[in-house]
């Protein structure tokens, strides 16, 4: 075990030495990988924040219940009772047709126009707030209420929330597709870097094999190099996003204050960062494993 650890430590030392002696090239490589990774991670960040923003707004979706125009007082009372005892209804209020008509005429300055109408065209209505704000639950409630006696029409004003939700859903899928594609690109980028390193160390590999090095021994430093490139690239992407978020927050501070909003882009959370770094390290490892394997099988 101790032996195994020191073998790995030796390989790691070798790789770090090499990366240090080619600082500039290494730094460039890490930036390229970091930029590649920051695209899906950045999109994720934007969607995450958009979801949070939407969550803040959609908290009081309204359901409007329009009664039949000739609904009787009994019907109104019955509906009132039904709403009061319904589990999913948070609160509601009644808007009588006369009050609504008066308000409309006054508010909109439609006195003249409305004067032309001899009868009040508005029905009685209830405005309902549901306990949940999930589009599916609200839709369910809407359908249920629509079956009740005396209801002419139930209207949801959450249609846009629903649209936003499905947009976010599409966005999340886009993140996955993008991450998959760029992960592939990362594999190729690291694989190529390692392939070039292998070419410059061809003699060393040849001599090592002649004096009894196993494939595992040959592979080890390259696997470390690949993993470190992946990890370094992941960290670069993280720093890039952190810088972008900070910059953005700084510049929207005034705007946000203007609108009395405390909206800020939040950074990637710990779990996501772990996935980002772990994923990039793994991809780097895999990229170099493929590159070394291809080389080893080509020389036998």
């Amino acid at each position: 075990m101790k032996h195994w650890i020191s073998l790995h430590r030796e390989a790691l030392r070798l790789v770090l030495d090499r990366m240090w002696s080619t600082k500039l090239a290494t730094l460039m490589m890490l930036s390229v990988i970091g930029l590649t990774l920051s695209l899906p991670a950045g999109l994720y960040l934007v969607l995450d924040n958009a979801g949070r923003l939407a969550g803040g707004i959609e908290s009081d979706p309204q359901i409007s219940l329009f009664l039949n125009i000739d609904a009787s007082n009994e019907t109104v009372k019955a509906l009132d009772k039904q709403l009061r005892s319904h589990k999913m209804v948070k609160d509601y209020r009644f808007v009588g047709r006369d009050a609504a008509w008066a308000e409309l005429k006054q508010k909109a300055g439609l006195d003249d126009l409305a004067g032309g109408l001899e009868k009040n065209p508005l029905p009685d209505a209830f405005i309902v707030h549901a306990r949940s704000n999930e589009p599916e639950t609200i839709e369910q409630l809407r359908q249920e209420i629509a079956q009740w006696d005396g209801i002419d029409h139930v209207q949801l004003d959450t249609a846009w929330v629903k649209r936003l939700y499905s947009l976010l859903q599409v966005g999340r899928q886009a993140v996955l597709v993008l991450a998959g594609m760029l992960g592939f690109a990362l594999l190729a980028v690291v694989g190529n870097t390692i392939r070039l390193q292998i070419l410059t160390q061809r003699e060393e590999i040849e001599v090592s094999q002649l004096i009894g090095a196993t494939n595992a021994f040959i592979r080890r430093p390259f696997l470390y190099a690949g993993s470190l490139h992946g990890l370094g690239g992941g960290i670069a992407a993280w720093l890039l996003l952190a810088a972008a978020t900070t910059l953005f927050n700084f510049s929207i501070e005034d705007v946000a204050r203007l609108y009395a909003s405390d909206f800020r882009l939040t950074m990637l959370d710990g779990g996501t960062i772990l996935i980002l770094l772990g994923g990039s390290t793994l991809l780097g490892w895999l990229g170099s494993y493929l590159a070394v394997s291809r080389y080893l099988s080509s020389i036998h």
Partner: protein
Amino acid sequence: MIKFDQVGKLYPGGYEALRNVSFEIAKGELAFVTGHSGAGKSTLLKLIAAIERPTAGTVLIGNQNVAKLRPAAIPHMRRKFGLVFQDHKLLYDRNVYDNVVLPLHINGILGNEAAKRVRAALDKVGLLGKEKAMPITLSGGEQQRLAIARAVVSRPSILIADEPTGNLDETYAAEIMNLFYAFHQVGVTVIIASHDASTIAASGAKVLRLDHGAMTS
């Protein structure tokens, strides 16, 4: 310990470098392989060290048939040997110390133990003060001695040297040959390829003479 039985080697191009070669080398023996340039000396040494495979006959190393080894077992077989290559095969982008320590790392020997052994090997070949030097800055003879230090550092039981005195003047050549005799004295099996008749005549050791791929004695 090393046994060739009617061994032939046909290189991929169709050139027959060895034909019907049979001999035995016992444990602890000192043997020379000699013959004109292109006679097949290097080929024979490569067959011993499991670097090339025979295309006819059998090569036995300590009762193991080299041709029948699994690919994964070959590296372990090669570690039994200390090899001095005809073209040295030094790593010119690594310093003297790192060149010599490579076989130890391959054998999993690291740290202080490795450093101690590297110094001992460099001391033996007279390069102790040159650990940090790059091989390219060494003279031809020093490079040759560096190659020997790398071959002996992991204390192999079989030492194989291909023209180790090739481009050295007489005094240096004699010095290096004495080095090999010293290893032979302590029980190491030593096999040396050389076309230099004078070094061989003096030793009274076993001689394998090759002529166009065939053994003549």
